[in-house]
């Protein structure tokens, strides 16, 4: 027997580590997933992410083609490049999935999110809120003497920025749709 003897206390690594051969840096990717609009399809996709420990930053879903019964799921996710590749491969092999597009690497794309902001306030604060909303091109969709509801469409960053501005001006409640994204050009 000439087995290799090991030193006690030698370093040891988890066999389950997904060793990041393509770098440790986390990246954010926007994926467009075209699926059959069948019962449970969203649960399947979400279950894949939770079951395998992937992140979901944002997720939107709606039927986009009634005729052929297709839905489009837009997922913003973060992970190392190898994890992102795994996510795409795992999504692609699901039975109700037609196609997976990584909009982040497939060329320029546009991303938009819609948000509603309820802002409470009187006097100067109220005026300041309205002025700021104009700068951001947010629309007033509801108003009372002591409140506004603003509607804003834009990139997630723009919506974050608007929320930050509104915080001291009486921001009470935010509703966001999550990101919808599409490739530029044709």
């Amino acid at each position, binding site marked *: 027997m000439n087995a290799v003897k090991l030193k006690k206390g030698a370093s040891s690594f988890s066999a*389950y580590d997904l060793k990041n051969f393509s770098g440790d840096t986390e990246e954010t990717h926007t994926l467009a997933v075209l699926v059959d609009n069948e019962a449970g399809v969203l649960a399947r996709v979400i279950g894949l992410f939770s079951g395998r420990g992937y992140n979901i930053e944002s997720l939107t879903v709606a039927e986009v083609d009634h005729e052929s019964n297709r839905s489009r799921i837009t997922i913003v996710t973060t992970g190392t490049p190898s994890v992102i590749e795994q996510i795409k491969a795992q999504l692609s*092999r699901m039975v109700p999935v037609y196609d997976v597009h990584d909009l982040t690497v497939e060329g320029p794309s546009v991303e938009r999110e819609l948000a509603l902001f309820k802002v409470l306030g009187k006097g100067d604060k109220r005026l300041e809120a309205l002025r700021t909303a104009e700068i951001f091109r947010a629309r007033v969709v509801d108003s009372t003497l002591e409140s506004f509801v603003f509607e804003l469409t834009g990139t997630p960053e723009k919506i974050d920025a608007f929320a930050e501005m509104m915080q001291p001006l009486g921001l009470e409640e935010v509703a966001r749709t999550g990101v919808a994204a599409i490739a530029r050009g044709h």
Partner: protein
Amino acid sequence: MSRQMTGADIVVQALKDQGVDTVFGYPGGAVLPIYDAIFQQNDIRHILVRHEQGATHAAEGYARSTGKPGVVIVTSGPGATNAVTGLTDALMDSIPMIVLSGQVPSFMIGSDAFQEADTVGITRPCTKHNWLVKDTEMLAETIHEAFHVATNGRPGPVLVDIPKDVQFASGNYISPAKADLGHYQPRVKGDKDAITALVELIEKAKKPVFYTGGGVINSGKGASQLLRELVKATNFPITSTLMGLGAYPASGDNWLGMLGMHGTYEANLAMHDCDLMICVGARFDDRITGRIDAFSPKSKKAHIDIDPSSINKVIHVDVPIIGDVGHVLEDLLKIWKSRGRKTKTADVKKWHAQIDQWRAVDCLAFKNSDKIIKPQYALQRLEALTKGMDRYITTEVGQHQMWAAQYLGFEEPNRWMTSGGLGTMGYGLPASVGTQIAHPDSLVINIAGEASWLMNMQEMGTAIQYRAPVKQFILNNERLGMVRQWQELLHGERYSHSWSEALPDFVKLAEAFGGKGIRCTDPADLDDAIMEMLNYDGPVIFDCRVEKHENCFPMIPSGKAHNEMLMGEEDTQGVIDSGGAVLV
């Protein structure tokens, strides 16, 4: 051909049209209409198991040993939840299986009705796909699609949940040929450029090794033939995972034995030192790789797999080839031959000489005893006495499973049924019954440990009822042997709950079921006792009393590399540090 019939009749007709001859199942309230339809026909044989988990493992044994999908029928609620372990097992080992579950009537779904469970919700993560059929008109097409999904691409289990009112109502039956099978069509042909890149690596390799897995078996007998041809023509050494045993014959000249945690010294060192690794239908499981960052550091790696998500999941490979093993090997041989069948013959010969030195270590040697039966010896004798027979082997999970993989030789694919990925104790007995039902005239042996075997022992009743003469070869050490081994090596010899103080008398148990019991305690009696088992025409429980504290070697401890194997007891002092203890 389209005609009106009840949902229950549609189920039976669809199974017939899919070529199903056997189903494994257990009736209950929500599947009574289907059982009524089964009662009124003679084309499909129904095997009544004793527990739904048994039905799933029996179907796995049937599927693995025939290459056809296994079919299971269970009722709603507990019937379906009992099938979950078998579904997960089949998913991990890529076994094609169709489970049809009854469901409460569709108008009662969501009302917490008697024996209601959210079956599609519960089984979503443990099936390849599943369906709830709410309309009898959709039933035939859904069942045909279920067979299509289970058997195409990477095979796996699927489930069709059928509410009771859908079984009673009438609908149109459509044949498989007319059914819309959806858009699920995984590619089977590999990319020619990638295959050519692999051929170039084969031509240049000095220390190549084939690392093959269950994907070769799943691809069909033709894939195993092509693999044998390729190995012979290139003279490259070959090793296999637990799931792939039999694709290349154990008696073949280039065979290194199984690799991995309990693989042979020569197989693991060949994997560690090779300069070209050709992975065929395997998935770099953690039982195979050991420490990831020390895995085969000097090799170029090629990976043939039908599932794109297997590529680069654990190990980064240089040449990925997505496709069915059989199709890819066929193209690979064609291209390699057309380029003049080149290999570095002299270098490969030197590589074989190196491997022969490792082989000379004789890593499977063990200290035999004339007083007590060593488990390794029991399997060596079983191998010697059954060699050349028309033999199928199933196993439970644990030390006995590893020893069976080490000491038994498999010459053909589909002869070895074991729970690899999930490691399901209780798999072997029902799997042996399913295998025997598919091959009534063959010898079917379940290599078992007493603890695993007890987990589904009720299936002895099934074996007796259907006169399935399965041989239950129990290596009885009165311990949970693999747990005990890890407690010895990793947990300071504190044997927490890893033995049983109240085991049944297995001989009396066999007799109680209506089978034959044999007990053997003396190595001198072993051959005669095994022959008595083989010669008995009926189910046998063989209580083989073995050494209680035997450990399974060689062993790559968790978190270690392929060249850090433990070869025997003398190597085990202080080798596993606390970092390794957290791994399984």
